């Protein structure tokens, strides 16, 4: 029988908010807003706390049933303290990047060298690419990073990532810049603006790989009705490699292209392959 009096909030309701507010003062706390039921506890309780790992899990819909404004209060509290609010999947990336910066001084040297030589966008693309290369070497999946570079910086960024992975920046562009600023500028722009019409020979490419890529370029050239394409080699070793490739290449009497050397310097070589029909 109702007495007409208002029913007081349950003790559990007050305890819930006070309990959660109490956790906020723990140093090194990680709060996860679990809207996906990523934890087993999230199916049954509005929150759970792991004291060993200092992880507080808040389950929004269950929490909101009992304390509608508490979640926003917690989020605002974290924000006001200038603490990190980040997508869960990206925390590991952030932590990996910080470790990478501490351990990879050689990449810092590359970035310092190119800081005043590249456009801001190219520099940022290079920075992302160096990290991508490091992660790749650690055996991690880097497809998302490649996509991020391409999404932000387009084809040019994707080319920078490829050139970086192939060691072009430290092995080819840095020495070339020391030799000739103009040559560096010319070849750098050619490299990063690489269209279907250019093949860049790099230090890690073997003669056999060059043959495969050359054949692919010829095929692509005919497929897309190109008139010609170029082979570029930068650096003494690559100049030797390209020359050797063309000298030793087995010529097919039915091949429908001609090769002309259009640049021949100690540190740079270029061939123009003209496709005939």
């Amino acid at each position: 029988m109702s007495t007409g009096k208002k029913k007081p909030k349950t003790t559990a309701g007050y305890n819930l908010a006070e309990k959660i507010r109490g956790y906020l003062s723990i140093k090194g706390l990680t709060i996860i807003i679990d809207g996906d039921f990523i934890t087993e506890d999230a199916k049954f309780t509005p929150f759970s706390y792991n004291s060993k790992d200092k992880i507080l899990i808040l389950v929004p819909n269950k929490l909101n049933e009992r304390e509608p404004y508490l979640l926003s209060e917690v989020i605002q509290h974290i924000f006001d303290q200038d603490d990190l609010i980040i997508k869960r999947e990206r925390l590991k990336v952030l932590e990996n990047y910080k470790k990478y910066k501490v351990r990879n001084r050689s990449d810092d040297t590359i970035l310092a060298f190119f800081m005043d030589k590249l456009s801001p966008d190219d520099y940022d693309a290079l920075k992302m690419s160096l990290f991508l290369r490091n992660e790749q070497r650690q055996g991690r999946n880097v497809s998302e990073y490649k996509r991020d570079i391409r999404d932000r910086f387009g084809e040019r960024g994707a080319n920078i990532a490829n050139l970086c992975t192939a060691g072009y920046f430290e092995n080819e562009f840095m020495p070339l810049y020391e030799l000739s600023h103009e040559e560096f500028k010319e070849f750098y722009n050619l490299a990063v603006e690489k269209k279907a019409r250019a093949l860049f020979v790099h230090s890690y490419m073997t003669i056999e790989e060059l043959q495969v890529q050359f054949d692919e370029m010829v095929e692509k050239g005919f497929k897309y009705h190109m008139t010609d394409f170029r082979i570029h080699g930068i650096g003494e070793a690559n100049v030797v490699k390209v020359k050797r490739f063309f000298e030793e290449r087995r010529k097919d009497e039915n091949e429908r292209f001609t090769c002309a050397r259009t640049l021949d310097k100690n540190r740079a070589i270029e061939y123009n392959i003209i496709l005939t029909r």
Partner: protein
Amino acid sequence: MSTNSTKLLFTNASAKYILEAFGKSINSEGIIIEKSTGEPIYTPEGEELTLQTLGAIKKGSEIFMKDDLFSIINIAEGKY
């Protein structure tokens, strides 16, 4: 970000609660907007965001960042 600082982590499914806390919502095209004005919010790079592409929020009035490597690097280097 020291080991003593607090972190708040969200997922695509719980991102909407983050938006609510900051007076934001989603329009019919899935773009994050200011609830009061209906205007889209932008990253420091001038990009619109969705629930899926929201990566992080930082103080500095309110800085909403994209969920990509570029933003993560900027957070790590204290750019925002």
